[in-house]
């Protein structure tokens, strides 16, 4: 059962499972901007030294036991920032521990069965769950949503394009990282390595924007992968469609310094273009532009002073205090199902040596 709302004059206590780069470079800096309402009180990591070091930065209790963190009465909200495969069980445990709200980094489950279990426990316990799809909490996106009118009905083309330097560039702007995972050197002559890279690309990178894509895709259950390109050193170019929508996903992570993170939804008479700020840094919100009339009429929203991560925490604080309605569990499940379907079809297409049977032609200029 969810506990009663906390006194409004006392910051809510936060406990974090997993103290890796996301916790260090994203959540702690975001929470540092919200100290009047949220306070980090307990940090758990399987590596006790990492837990101690990171917890010491914020004066929190450190430990290597999830049960101890969930039993800590000072913790009102649990953030799950552990490796993907632990998410489902930890979300369920946090709900059963009677916490006021749970934040789970994306993806919140790795299959539909896990998602159903989580949904059932959330319903049973009444503990609201927020999935860390930070762009859905970005003030630029939210402002666009308030102003896009009938755009979702008329959209025919959706694009998500993500161009990023290696994470370390922005992690190092945000904090001083300890225990950064070693960079790998994948052998892309092995199709299994490519399949894993594409799976990781969809479930680790594209998933940031797939809830946005789904917002404009009413027939999301009928997704079809038309083509998959694996992009080196890391990325993808995936062409998808539903009966009514064209969806193009692009991503490149290379050694550039210049991030480009855009989302577009284009209809017959109106179009939305959003430029998101890169992850990790507290660089404010996205800028959303709604255009009409061959681009001669534009409405611009943003930038606002905070990003989607801070937005997530504001949402969690509102949920924990009972001042905001709990998010729909079905929305979370649909978002996950959509992402899993794309990831599965993408990997299958790559394994089949590219979907699409059109003949090939070559030309030189």
């Amino acid at each position, binding site marked *: 059962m969810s506990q009663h709302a906390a006194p409004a004059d006392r910051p809510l206590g936060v406990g974090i499972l997993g103290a890796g780069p996301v916790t260090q470079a994203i959540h702690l800096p975001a929470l540092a901007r919200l100290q009047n309402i949220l306070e980090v009180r307990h940090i758990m990591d399987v590596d006790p030294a990492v837990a101690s070091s990171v917890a010491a930065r914020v004066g929190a209790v450190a430990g290597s036991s999830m049960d101890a963190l969930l039993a800590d009465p000072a913790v009102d909200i649990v953030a799950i920032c552990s490796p993907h495969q632990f998410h489902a069980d930890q979300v369920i445990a946090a709900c059963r521990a009677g916490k006021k709200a749970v934040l789970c980094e994306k993806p919140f489950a790795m299959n539909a069965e896990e998602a159903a279990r989580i949904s059932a426990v959330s319903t049973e316990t009444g503990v609201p769950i927020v999935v860390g799809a930070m762009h859905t909490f970005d003030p630029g996106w939210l402002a666009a949503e308030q102003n896009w009118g009938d755009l979702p009905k008329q959209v025919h*083309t959706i694009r998500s*394009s993500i161009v990023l330097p290696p994470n370390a560039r922005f992690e190092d702007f945000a904090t001083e990282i300890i225990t950064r995972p070693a960079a790998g050197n994948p052998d892309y002559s092995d199709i299994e390595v490519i399949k894993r890279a594409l799976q990781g690309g969809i479930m680790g990178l594209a998933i940031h924007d797939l809830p946005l894509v789904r917002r404009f895709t009413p027939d999301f259950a009928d997704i079809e992968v038309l*083509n998959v390109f694996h992009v080196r050193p890391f*990325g993808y*170019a995936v062409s998808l469609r539903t009966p009514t929508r064209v969806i193009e996903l692009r991503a490149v992570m290379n050694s550039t310094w210049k991030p480009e993170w855009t989302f577009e939804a284009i209809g017959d008479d109106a179009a939305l273009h959003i430029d998101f700020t890169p992850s990790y840094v507290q660089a404010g919100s996205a800028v959303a532009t709604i255009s009409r009339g*061959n681009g001669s009429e534009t409405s611009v929203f943003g930038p606002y002073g905070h990003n989607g991560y801070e937005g997530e925490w504001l949402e969690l604080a509102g949920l924990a205090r009972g001042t905001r309605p709990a998010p729909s569990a079905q929305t979370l499940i649909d978002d996950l199902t959509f992402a899993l379907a794309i990831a599965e079809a993408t990997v299958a297409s790559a394994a089949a040596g590219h979907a699409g049977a*059109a003949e090939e032609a070559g*030309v*030189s200029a």
Partner: protein
Amino acid sequence: MSGQYTVAAGPVAREAGAVTPTMASLPETFGPAQDTQAGTADVLVVAGVPGWTAEAASAVAAGMRGIVVANPVPEDSTQLAAAAGAAGTAVVLDLRWASNPALVGDATEPDARDAVRSAAGTASLLDSVATAAQGTDPQRLLADHLASLLAVCGPLGAVRVLRSGAAGYTVGGRLPNGAPFTAQGVLTAARPAGVDIRLYTADGGVTVQVPDPDAAWPAEVRVTGPHGELLLPTLYESAHRSAWRRLKDHLRAGTSPDDLAGFARLTDLYATLAAT
């Protein structure tokens, strides 16, 4: 000044090639032929509708010194090229985006082709989007789009149409180094027409944004690398004027443009894709 070239153009060609305002921007070089002189003008403007190669070949046979083809559709131009070469007629193609001077300029200025081809060796992905008004024939848009890509990218291999419909198309293929490229066409009334080409490389890339030629707004070519980002000099000249200026240079110098040779590569690719 060595005299003004007289220009004849029918109504369709005049509209398609924005002939009047373009000639007005080169007033020392080109002027309209009087109605009574149409058969003896120096230059003929041909609308690039189906059958344009036959009309242009007739103009070559009639002794025209120069021909401008306004936004030609892909069509076999082999015989036209041979006839123009033999007669010494300069045939210049005024292509919607590919004729923009920022894509392929003269040797004295940096252009998109140089920037893209210099970076192509470390390409990871080339992603391009062409936008046009609703009602545009997607196949026509694809031809304009491919023409701009061929102008700047060099060889395109393993090209396939991934889908095509009323809302646009997606084409995919490979760059010379094996990296993938995608070209998407989008039909909408929400955005200005134009083509956007983005090449991502190991440490940066090149972006090319080309507007429609109905005004002299410049294309933007940006080169990103460890040094930062460099905006190439902006050229406030439309694709139409750039094509006509090249015609002027060839007429003055007595040289032959290679437009038809380049266009043959587009035609070959287009024909192969259309057959699939």
